[in-house]
């Protein structure tokens, strides 16, 4: 029976807070939100978003890619973050001989794939079926950005893409962990990427769940989410393979379905409760062992009430310090589980809790209160990370600090 321990040995992230772990960490530490009015494309909607302050051309240069080829922004953001994580872990420097001895896979995730460029195609195509540049469709399939990352990192022993809306990246981390535990892979690049697109901005607008101001997760006056873009990846590996550093261990994971409504969460947070209790069961620890919760906390009235109820069901009166970083980055959709898992692991490393920004009024109906000031110097053992999505998809990961 194989049951490998799975540790995290590399991190990579790009979000509205900046490019790379250091810039993101700096913004988290200094309580600087990246949410601002939209500039990346023309839209009639007056919305605040979390944009990555890098143009596509700039990213193509940073990555030394062939500039004559077309890349979706989703693929470029993913490449930047995945390359950083792979470099951080040191696997990028392995020689061919040592590299061949390892089974390395990429499990990524995205919600709309290369929609940012498909939109350009479709705008012309819908008026004239002979128009629209076919090369704009190159990144349309959700799997396309993952393939580009796997080729770039020369890591293709297993390559796949999860798409479970806003819980996607957490499910990718979960599959990678299970594959390593069971000996199917030695190392995996896991996480997700999503770029801003008219499709998602209009989609969430049509649902009436975009806040015109900066979002306020778990606040009584919360009025919706801000869409963000970004990518976040972890390098996970068997603990018995040499590694330069360790950010922690993937101790628990579970996925459950709320089975309540296609887009809304149940008021008692059934899916969230089952995901959290399932992850606790896998990790073999009890609720009292959880040091902090990195919440999904989108800022929509429905999500935060539902997640808050689920936290009360799991932890009773002793809800650990919890917060959502969506007030910094916006909701990076499929990438959220990746970006925020990086943040959760940085919490473990630095003993900090990233507070909710813009918090004013405690919720009336659900008696929970997020962390609103930066907590530091804490002795954190386990962080529980929630990610929920459309279709009732709920996933919880538990990261533990090892060899402190």
């Amino acid at each position, binding site marked *: 029976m194989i049951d490998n321990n799975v540790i995290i040995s590399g991190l990579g992230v790009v979000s509205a807070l900046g490019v790379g772990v250091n810039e993101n960490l700096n913004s988290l530490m200094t309580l600087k939100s990246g949410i601002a009015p939209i500039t990346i494309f023309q839209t009639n909607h007056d919305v605040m978003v979390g944009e990555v302050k890098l143009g596509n051309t700039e990213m193509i240069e940073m990555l030394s890619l062939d500039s004559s080829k077309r890349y979706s922004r989703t693929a470029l953001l993913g490449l930047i973050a995945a390359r950083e994580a792979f470099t951080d872990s040191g696997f990028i420097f392995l020689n061919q001989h040592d590299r061949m001895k390892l089974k390395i896979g990429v499990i990524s995730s995205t919600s709309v794939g290369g929609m940012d460029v498909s939109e350009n195609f*479709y705008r012309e*195509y819908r008026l004239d079926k002979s128009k629209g540049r076919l090369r704009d469709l190159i990144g349309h399939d959700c799997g396309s950005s*993952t393939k580009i990352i796997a080729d770039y990192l020369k890591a293709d022993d297993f390559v796949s893409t999860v*798409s479970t809306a806003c819980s996607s990246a957490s499910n990718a981390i979960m599959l990678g962990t299970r*594959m390593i535990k069971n000996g199917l892979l030695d190392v995996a690049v896991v996480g997700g990427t999503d770029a801003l697109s008219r499709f998602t901005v209009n*989609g969430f607008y049509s*649902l009436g769940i975009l806040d015109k101001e900066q979002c306020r997760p778990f606040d009584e006056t919360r009025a919706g989410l801000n869409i963000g873009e970004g990518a976040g990846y972890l390098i996970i590996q068997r603990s018995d393979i040499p590694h330069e550093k360790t950010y922690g261990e993937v101790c628990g994971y579970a996925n459950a379905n709320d089975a309540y409504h296609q887009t809304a969460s149940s008021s008692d947070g059934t899916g969230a409760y089952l995901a959290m209790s399932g992850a606790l069961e896998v990790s073999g620890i009890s609720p009292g062992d959880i040091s902090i919760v990195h919440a999904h906390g989108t800022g929509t009235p429905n999500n935060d009430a539902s997640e808050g109820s689920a936290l009360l069901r799991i932890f009773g009166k002793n809800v650990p310090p919890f917060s959502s970083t969506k007030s910094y980055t916006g909701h990076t959709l499929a990438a959220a589980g990746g970006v925020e898992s990086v943040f959760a692991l940085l919490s473990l490393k630095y003993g900090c809790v990233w507070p909710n920004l813009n918090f004013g009024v405690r919720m009336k109906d659900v008696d929970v209160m997020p962390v609103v000031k930066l907590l530091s110097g804490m002795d954190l053992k386990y962080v529980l990370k929630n990610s929920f999505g459309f*279709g009732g998809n709920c996933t919880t990961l538990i990261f533990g600090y090892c060899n402190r």
Partner: protein
Amino acid sequence: MMNNRIYIYSCATVEGKNEPDYKDYIPDPLARRRMSRIIKMGLTSAMIALKDSGLKSIDGIITGTGWGCLADTERFLNSIYENDERLLNPSAFIQSTPNTIGAQIALSLGTNCYNVSYVHGGISFESALTDAMLMLKERKDMNLLVGGFDEMSSTKEHILGRMGVWRVTTPGEGAHFFILGNSFSDKALAEIESVTTFNENGALNSDIDLMNILERIEISLDSSCRVLYGLTNRLSFPEQLKDYLIDYKKLCGEYPTASAFALWYGSHLFKKMGNVEKIIIVSRHLRERISVIAIKNISS
């Protein structure tokens, strides 16, 4: 990890060319009207597979789709441009996410179990199978609903035509669902032995060598084996094998999850043909990863 064996208890297929009467499976007329064709195809296929298995409940819903919900995606994109970002109807957006079908199955069954969707082109269904097989090895007494589906919208067919795809293959679509489990049943249709995918750099006009593929994943052929193949490339193989090979994409057409059709088709071949012990399904959608699924007769 336990050494559980993995069985296919039942399977169902819904194809564009023989769609059932959906109201038998999705009785609520309002729900039915809201659903796009691929949602109805997927949900119905899942319901038939579950009914045929005789199981009352399942422990996981794992789906794979290469193209996702194309019609709703296009409908929402159109509405953005048509009305200049005004008067948007959220239902097309809601139903455009590739996990819609998995979610609709969970809603219909009222089940809170594990639920994941994979969207990775030509190996989307294989990804779902990989996850399912892992889960069936991790835990005892598990039953999973696993499916692969894709719809051919008129726009997709037209765009792929412009790309020249229909010069080498013909369009197809379908939704195929399976109930997999790890307890032996003599009613099982087949046992799944392995699922492998690997990268292939060859161009579309180069031949792919069957023996090379089988050698690579350490499968040897004998007269009790059959090979179901579906590749956009031409497959080369020793002349004496030709009676053991079936080009399955001639039956179902080209789409990313056509290998799910092949698994459905292959699962029924053991009883139909009598003396077949093993079936090897070799697939490649356009220029993507090659996949090999090996299944065997449960009596062997």
